[in-house]
């Protein structure tokens, strides 16, 4: 059962939201995996609802949008889709392939991918990547993340694997759910106030789907971010229409407080 929130008096209590974050399944919520593609026939995704598989490729200076392009260039996007599916089993997943087999992308391909996902009505954009925090890259990434904010689309982005203070786009934009990995075996979500990358979740030695039907153990912020995406999807499946500004406050209120032992730095 879902409850659309139209004004603040309808707003659920924290206890109700906590319950939604546990009992929600992601039904009716569309999550875009902006990544290296998804191996849609992977056994671990056999029950997942994968509704789009689009690839963005550069040919002769133009961006070619290839529909129905199933397949993952190196396994990363399949891992991300798997984590979302494990944690929000009824969420609909869309694969928007913008990263190549060398784990490299270009800003204009990412911009094309996220815009296409927004055009298709996705509620959450999972960005398990980061563009180096150079000034020249700010504007294009800020434009699309602002567009997402205005459209009520939630952007979840992984930060740098080794230093959450190292500027990367989009995880270092304030309206984005910046996610770090937490050194924990728990499934909890942690909140660290006064940091641009303020959320963290388990991202170490995570068992994930990988290329050719395989299973891998992977470590990185990339595998923590989809846990936050799934968490938001579960809440949205019970309370649709919560905008990113409110969701940020809600998720931070529901999260466990961050503590230094969770840091992977030494």
């Amino acid at each position, binding site marked *: 059962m879902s409850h659309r929130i139209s004004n603040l008096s309808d707003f659920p209590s924290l206890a109700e939201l906590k319950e939604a974050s546990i009992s929600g399944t992601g039904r009716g919520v569309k999550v875009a995996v902006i990544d290296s593609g998804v191996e849609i026939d992977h056994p671990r995704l056999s029950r997942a609802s994968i509704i789009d598989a689009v690839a963005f490729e550069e040919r002769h200076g133009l961006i070619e949008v290839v529909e129905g392009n199933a397949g993952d260039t*190196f396994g990363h996007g399949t891992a991300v889709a798997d984590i979302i599916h494990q944690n929000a089993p009824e969420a609909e997943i869309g694969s928007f392939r913008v990263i190549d087999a*060398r784990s490299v992308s270009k800003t204009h391909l990412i911009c094309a991918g996220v815009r296409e996902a927004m055009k298709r009505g996705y509620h959450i954009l999972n960005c398990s990547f980061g563009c180096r925090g150079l000034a020249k890259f700010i504007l294009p990434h800020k434009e699309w993340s602002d567009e997402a904010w205005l459209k009520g689309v939630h952007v979840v982005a992984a930060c740098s694997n080794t230093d959450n203070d190292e500027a990367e786009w989009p995880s270092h934009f304030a309206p984005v759910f910046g996610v770090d990995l937490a050194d924990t075996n728990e499934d909890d979500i942690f909140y660290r106030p006064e940091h641009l990358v303020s959320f963290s979740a388990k991202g*170490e030695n995570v068992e994930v789907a990988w290329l050719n039907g395989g*299973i891998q153990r992977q470590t*990185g912020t990339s595998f923590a971010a989809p846990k936050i995406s799934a968490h938001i999807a579960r809440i949205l499946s019970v309370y649709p229409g919560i905008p990113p500004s409110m969701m940020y406050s809600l998720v931070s209120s529901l999260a466990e407080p961050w503590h230094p032992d969770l840091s*992977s730095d030494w």
Partner: protein
Amino acid sequence: MIQPDPEISPHAAHIEQSLNRIARALRPDEFTGLIGAPGLSVMRSAMDALQADSLSVWLADEDESHLVVTHTEPDPEFLGWKQSLEEGLTGLVYASEQCLCENEVYSNANHSKKADEALGQVTYAMIATPFYIAGNLKGIISCVQLKDSVDAPNPSGFSARNMNRVRRLSTAIERLVNYKMLTSLLDLEL
């Protein structure tokens, strides 16, 4: 706080350009001489702390088509090993400039098994981090845990904390190399 040297600061841009030029021209066979005893010491202590079986510095060759093992600990057997940048997890880290930490590497389709086959070993766990000189990407530093065969017991594996340690090692080695190049450029003996 260190204040800029008034005699040197007007030449900062020129010094930076010269450093970049030297870094670009750096040959893999010059590397061990540049890091010297302090570099070897930090690498060995990092390796011990990580319980790694091997630690290697790979530098891109002149035409940036291959990574070449320029320094390796503890066994020099791997020295000079060349791997295409299009291949394996090392090439992936170089291309993406993102650190990697992975256990059960041998089962990853992206892992190149050529080195394992040549050296008669199985790579169980790997950390690889980009390596810069004078701020420019120059190669990668990798750390591995090995086993004799796929069926042999697994070593302890690596963690995100270990990955951070290798990233800091990479920064320390870069600073050491930058310092050596700078003192040589300015003809200083500090």
